[in-house]
């Protein structure tokens, strides 16, 4: 189930990247040929950026694609390496927790206050903030499940799965 949601979030991010390209290219073409533009294009691009960057966080985490320095850990025995991987994930859970709390506060505030971006379309502020909260929350959940799976694998003496998708959710 979680995997399906994560794939959906990734595909939404793909749509957001396409949206970025289309929106900016259209703006350039309209400016060059008609001396015109897309209203509030900058605000829309900024909101799409949040979707493009934050929504794939859970998949990135599941694929263990976060960049880490492995120079020291590669010289440790296998069990030491596994311990460091789990420790890194636990630290990630701690580091992301304040972001979720802050994201929740901001999203709730944007929705209740009805904040909007000044411009022709007066676009609301809440979508970007809600997407941010959603992306970070799913990333946290995936990281938590990976910690649980990794600890179980360590207890069994089994190697850690290369990606979270190698094991059942």
């Amino acid at each position, binding site marked *: 189930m979680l995997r399906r949601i994560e794939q959906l979030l990734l595909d939404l991010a793909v749509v957001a990247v396409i949206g970025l390209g289309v929106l*900016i290219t259209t703006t350039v073409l309209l400016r060059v040929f008609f001396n015109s533009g897309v209203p509030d294009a900058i605000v829309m691009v900024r909101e799409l950026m949040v979707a493009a960057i934050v929504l794939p966080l859970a998949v990135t985490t599941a694929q263990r694609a976060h960049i880490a320095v492995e120079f020291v850990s590669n010289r440790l025995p296998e069990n030491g390496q596994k311990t460091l991987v789990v420790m890194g994930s636990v630290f990630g859970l701690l580091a992301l927790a304040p972001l979720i709390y802050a994201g929740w506060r901001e999203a709730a505030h944007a929705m209740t206050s009805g904040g909007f971006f000044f411009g022709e379309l007066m676009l609301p502020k809440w979508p970007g903030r809600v997407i941010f909260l959603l992306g970070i929350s799913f990333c946290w959940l995936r990281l938590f499940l990976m910690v649980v799976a990794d600890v179980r694998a360590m207890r069994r003496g089994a190697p850690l799965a290369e990606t979270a998708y190698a094991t059942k959710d």
Partner: protein
Amino acid sequence: MDGTLVGLCAFAAVILLLGLRVPIAFALAGVATVGTFVLFAFRTGTFLPERAVTPTTSLVFSNSFDLIHSYDLSMIPLFVALGHIAYRADITTKIYHAARVWLARIPGGVAIASVVGCGGFSAITGSSIACASTMGRICSPEMLRMGYDKRLATASVAAGGTLGSLIPPSVLFIIYGIFTETSISSLFLAGILPGLLSLLGFILVIYVWVLRDPAAAPRFTGTITTREKFSAALEAWPAIALFTIIVGGIYGGFFTATEAAAVCVSAAILIGFAQRKLTLRSLVEALRETCVQTTAIFLIAAGAKIFVAFIALTGVAGDIVQAVTDAQLSPVLLLAAIAVIYLLLGMFLDPIGIMVLTLPLMVPLVETYGFDLIWFGVVVIKLLEIGLITPPVGLNVFVIAGVVGKEVPIDRIFSGILRFLSVDVIVLILIMAFPVISLLIPGSM
């Protein structure tokens, strides 16, 4: 509580956590959050944690969200997408094939074509590791099959791959531009001449290598007609067109770097579909890879942004600048010290990690000395490029080792790299001694 002490402890904690394999983004964000909380909690002299929660979470949210919620930075996913789409549309490999046909008769022609191919690949994509990985899969096995010296066949591509960071577009330049608040368009233009200089240096290394040891590269004995040559050159037009859009568009003032990225992605998709090299399925795959890769980059940048804000609160950067100023280091000595620090860090850390860790301290320092930040950016990126091929953690070397497998041991690749490293050091000295090499093109805008 002494801000400088908290700042220095934070740097030590980040280095320790990085050594313990904690992902860079989590290490930076986690330490910065705790550090900010401690600073705010002790603001009145006594420990009042309830007073620290709101300012800490506000700082954490605003710095990470504002970084992502950016129009200018949309060029990062777009340039990353351009690389993936161009590869799947067979645009990047055509440059190598054209160079291979044209340079076949020159001693070491395939190795030189590989380096030229890397330069061409770099002109469309923004990542050194992506460049080494893609070109390595094509060039190194081919050279090994042709009987090239194993060191030459691998080291040339590992070194050529580093051009990805210097020749525009470059993800490292974009990240440098964010943290130093310098024009990314100017940085792109500033990287062109140093990039070409490095490319020429690598070609010279291969040429001299093969001249002194002809057995290192078997001579081409076949025939290539003029028609074949022109046909190969014509097939490379999409890559040339995309590079022209990027550089010509920015230099000519037609559009910004962000707009150049979007226009190039649209053009690459159209070319790919028109030439029937790109399918809807491969386009979606390319964009999925783009999203995962971009997210990993942005998470680090967001962690770094929070860390930079925290460091600004501590005032440690100002204290270090003061200490260096008091020591009355000459500009040359300062630059030499900076180069040594970057080269040492480059032996163990990845380029993005080094940059986000050092820039909060380095930028105020070089600004105090009156150095041009565009030129300093080129110097930093060149240093980071060198770090990609220096032992023991030369990322590009490991990428190539992964491609060629057990056929070429990693120490053999590193022994071949030494000749390219020597040229890199010469180019670095030239860039440092003659800032005009970097500043000529952006200065003429």
